[in-house]
């Protein structure tokens, strides 16, 4: 892995999540995923739906409850093993040390309680505060997340707030106990583009104002480019490529990363008549092809791909592909498409 400065906040090693397969044996939904996250770092976890990115996050939170699921490997938070942690100890960590926000702020709040009551509840679960004390903290957090008239907003029911305000309230709730790690699962997917930019700006500010590290899960390369220090690309449950965002966008090492980047229309320069798309669809976890999972969809598919791809180092990037070893690096890309900063 990339050498991150300082003591890692989170270190995941060989995380594998499997379900019992129909004919006996196991189907790996997430396979041998390793990464680490430094304090105040923003790591983007990118992949198509079904690539295992949300499942990875849920496993870190101890929230995988598919019947019979098996989780192996290790995930250490500040040196403490999270996998197999006792229920009670995990509850103490959840919400206080590691918080999570979800994709759809409409369905993520319990509909029958006010937003404020739900934030109060989290604060009081972890801090010995009075009702009024918790509410003061709630209002303060809502205000800091840019919710106008926070005291009144706290008394609103979730359905009475707009999508953007709901997601701000969700982030306020997640941050209410000053977690060191925030896991954001597609936090902007359900929002309008303008609101999306505001929420991403908010996430970027967190490391400065709250010293939080963020694990940002998304399928949107544009969101990653705007927000993340480092990027990890998942394909069919395994890491395809990881590295600093700028390096990875400048010269992707894995054909899948390149395909994802190609499918974004460039902001500058001539536009292609038709956006290139990656042909086919990702395999289901039960029916992965032999060797490299991406092989059937890959333009560079050749005999060497029938073996499982090695994880290779190139510069600051880790690439699960044989191409760099064969001296057939993918060409660098013009940086122009991503240098336009989006105002926060």
């Amino acid at each position, binding site marked *: 892995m990339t050498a991150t400065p300082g003591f890692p906040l989170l270190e995941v090693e060989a995380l594998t999540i499997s379900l019992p397969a129909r004919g006996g044996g196991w189907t790996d939904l997430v396979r041998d995923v390793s990464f680490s996250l430094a304090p105040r770092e923003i790591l983007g976890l990118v992949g198509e739906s079904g690539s295992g990115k949300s499942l990875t996050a849920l496993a870190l939170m101890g929230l995988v409850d598919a019947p019979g699921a098996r989780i192996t490997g290790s995930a250490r938070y500040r040196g403490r093993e999270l996998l197999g942690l006792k229920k009670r100890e995990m*509850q103490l960590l959840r*919400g206080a040390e590691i*918080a999570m926000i979800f994709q759809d702020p409409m369905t*993520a*709040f319990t*509909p*029958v309680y006010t937003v404020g009551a739900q934030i109060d*509840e989290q604060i009081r*679960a972890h801090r010995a505060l009075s009702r009024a004390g918790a509410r003061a903290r709630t209002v303060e957090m809502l205000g800091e997340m840019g919710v106008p008239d926070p005291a009144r907003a706290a008394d609103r029911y979730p359905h009475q707030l707009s999508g953007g305000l709901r997601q701000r309230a969700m982030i306020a709730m997640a941050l209410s106990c000053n977690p060191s790690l925030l896991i954001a699962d597609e936090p902007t997917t359900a929002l309008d583009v303008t609101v999306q930019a505001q929420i991403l700006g908010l996430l970027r500010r967190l490391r400065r104002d709250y010293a939080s590290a963020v694990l940002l899960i998304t399928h949107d390369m544009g969101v990653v480019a705007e927000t993340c220090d480092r990027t990890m690309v998942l394909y069919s449950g395994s890491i395809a490529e990881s590295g600093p965002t700028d390096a990875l966008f400048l010269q992707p090492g894995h054909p899948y990363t390149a395909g994802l980047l190609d499918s974004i229309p460039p902001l500058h320069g001539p536009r292609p008549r038709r956006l290139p798309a990656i042909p086919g669809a990702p395999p289901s976890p039960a029916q992965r092809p032999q060797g490299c999972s991406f092989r059937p969809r890959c333009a560079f598919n050749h005999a060497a791909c029938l073996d499982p791809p090695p994880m290779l180092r190139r510069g600051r990037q880790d690439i699960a592909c044989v191409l760099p070893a064969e001296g057939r690096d993918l060409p660098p890309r013009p940086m122009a498409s991503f240098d336009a900063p989006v105002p926060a």
Partner: protein
Amino acid sequence: MLMALLGRLGQTLLVLLGISVLVFAVFFATPGADPTARIAGRNASPETMAAVRHEYGFDRPLPVQYLRMMDKLFVTRDLSSFVDHGQKVVPEVLRAAPVTLSLVGGAAAIWVAASVTIGTIAAAMRGSWIDRGLMMLGLVGISMPVFWLGEVANLVTQSRYHHSWLFSWVPGLGYVSLWRDPSGWFAHLVIPWIVLAVLFIGIYGRVLRADLVASFDEDFMRTARAKGLSDSRVLLHHGLRTSMITFVSLFGLDFAQLVGGGALLTEVVFGLPGVGRLTYQALNNLDLPLIMATVMYSAVFVVLANAVVDLVYLLLDPRTR
């Protein structure tokens, strides 16, 4: 808001009107049978027949008959039974109502407590043998005819095991007023309460478990767990509270139906002189005015209860406000 309430009120009135027309039609406009003979009862004399025909206006067109009947039921309230020597029907129904209310109220308390407990335990332990066992028990409860269960309960508590320590306190069948003898009231009603509650414990336990299990897949339940709340708080404070919305609306309807006479079979088996048993006696005497009055009374009660349920719904689910 006011418009919505007015609209709801208008709808309620419309349904009430519809019910009264339907009930009237069932009793007096069924083709091919002479309502006079039915009201007069078995072997009525020609004089009685003539009196009935005149009083209800059976020699007049149907709408007139309908209006006259509604007048007798709701305005002058002097609808009287011909079988039972001119006994006024409406006061009789009102006298029986407290008995029914006692029976249904107690049973409702039992079934709500028991079904919430069973449903929550089964949902919390879903997939386990306890879950399967409880749900099977619930299904057995749903499958038992209440009058049969009542007879079996009588057999056990009044005869076979009446002299054992377990049931020696059970008094003979019948009813004692709450105001006259509170402990007697309780002792007379405990067994009927349980028997009446069994069916509903089965239904509500199963419905609640299904709702709760479905709620485990909801995003907000995941959020609640991600907040670091304990499993029991997630289950009770978030899952159960949300599932209570359906639960309460079902409860309102069933409660109203039972108070309105749906508890007839239980009242008959335990000799409780409530509205249902009134209907039963009228049934044996072929006393049509009395049956019609009880049916009308129950339907009115159900419709009013529906309106109350809608109001409670507003309180329980902020999304409907």
